[in-house]
């Protein structure tokens, strides 16, 4: 009797073929993207989204072509912070154009489409059993977005991931080995412990883990123009114990938080310790991307400051 693998095709449903076609559309759509970088943590509330946006801004200020995909479909924040809330999705002849920030960063966020007063919802045949299928549906949607939008020629496509160590690994599996990971923590042993779990989980797969950023590393007091401890004094905080490189530290700045709420780019803030910290992280990230890139990715182009925007 024939076995499963002896039979070509599936009798007409073409489910596997359609999944393969989806993958091909994603690969084709991202062919012009030099680096895929997922910004994750495992821990919620450490500032992944804020760091993603402002790191993108620091990279954009160097003339690089940057896009952000807010992969946190259930808690999207990039639309508000990037100033693209309510932006239209406009279809072209083949793909859909992406909204852009004032400083030219392309952004996809469900927050552009769904009001903050509403939750992302999918119709279901299995009512009350969303734990059995929801993640699959969300990843299918992510695939549709990757395959449908005009990513074009980019230096970096940054994914702003949702929290959860297990989710981080699911994104690694879905996005494939091309995607490198940047993890975000704060000076808290609890947060570092969760990030360490993400590192451990990612280390079992092929994805590069570029390093981590310590966010909220003190706060910037404008009155005394100094960085002060936010969680614990530096001498109280033990070394992170994370066995990946630290790409830099970024202090918390209440003024920056207000800018995020209003969708104002960091570039419109005067020179601050936060800006300098982000600029250092941006350079470290580029260095790590180049130094850890697979041989094939080195061959054609290098990331150089000052590259013109394609438009």
């Amino acid at each position: 009797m024939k076995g499963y693998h002896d039979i070509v095709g599936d009798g007409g449903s073409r489910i596997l073929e359609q999944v393969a076609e989806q993958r091909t559309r994603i690969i084709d759509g991202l062919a012009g993207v030099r680096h895929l970088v997922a910004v994750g943590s495992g821990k919620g509330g450490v500032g992944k989204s804020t760091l993603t946006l402002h790191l993108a801004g620091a990279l954009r200020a160097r003339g690089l072509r940057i896009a952000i995909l807010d992969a946190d479909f259930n808690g999207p924040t990039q639309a508000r912070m990037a100033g693209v809330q309510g932006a239209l999705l406009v279809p072209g002849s083949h793909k859909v154009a992406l909204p852009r920030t004032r400083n030219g960063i392309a952004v996809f966020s469900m927050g552009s489409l769904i009001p903050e007063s509403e939750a992302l919802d999918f119709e279901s045949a299995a009512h009350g059993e969303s734990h059995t299928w929801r993640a699959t549906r969300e990843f299918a949607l992510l695939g549709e977005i990757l395959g449908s939008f005009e990513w074009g020629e980019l230096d970096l496509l940054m994914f702003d991931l949702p929290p959860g160590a297990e989710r981080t690994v699911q994104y690694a599996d879905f996005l494939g080995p091309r995607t490198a990971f940047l993890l975000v923590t704060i000076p808290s042993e609890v947060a570092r412990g969760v990030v360490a779990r993400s590192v451990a989980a990612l280390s079992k797969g092929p994805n590069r883990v570029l390093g981590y950023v310590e966010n909220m590393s003190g706060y910037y007091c404008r009155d005394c123009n100094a960085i002060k401890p936010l969680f614990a004094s530096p001498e109280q905080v033990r070394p992170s114990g994370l066995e990946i490189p630290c790409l830099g530290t970024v202090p918390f700045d209440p003024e920056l938080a207000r800018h995020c709420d209003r969708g104002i780019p960091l570039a419109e803030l005067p020179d601050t310790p936060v800006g300098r910290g982000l600029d250092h992280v941006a350079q470290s990230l580029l260095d790590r991307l180049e130094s850890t890139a697979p041989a094939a990715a080195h061959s054609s182009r290098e990331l150089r400051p000052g590259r013109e925007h394609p438009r």
Partner: protein
Amino acid sequence: MKFLCVPCDSPMKLQTVAPPEGGSLSVVYSCPECGYEMAMLTNAYETQLVQSLGVRIGPGTSEGASSGASSKCPFPAMMPATEGAPESPRDAEPGPVRWTSGAEARLANIPAFVRPMARTGIERFAREQGAQEVDERILDQAREFFGM
């Protein structure tokens, strides 16, 4: 999932997919050798799991079907949040705006799940431009207006 006619040792072929009922699909397969027919009846979990892959199931599905072309897929009827369903009644705007076939074809490039929201936004833009019809010129205007 594949089905094998054991007496013929021959793969069975999908024949029909009945409209969904209570979260269940009825998918009929037949053996091309002996003509024997059998039906696969899914429970709601199975139906939903396949639906969650973002694929279509049914005879005659062809390339492009998964991205929005017409098919015999029964799932859209089960997915009022996506295509084939009333589009975002909560966003209903006063006065109808027509869509030309060319503009509709371009709209189909948008993932089905977010298409109703995109449609509403574009219609709003068209009204703001004093247009009662969305054509490809309006879409190009929108791209330019939003710096895309």
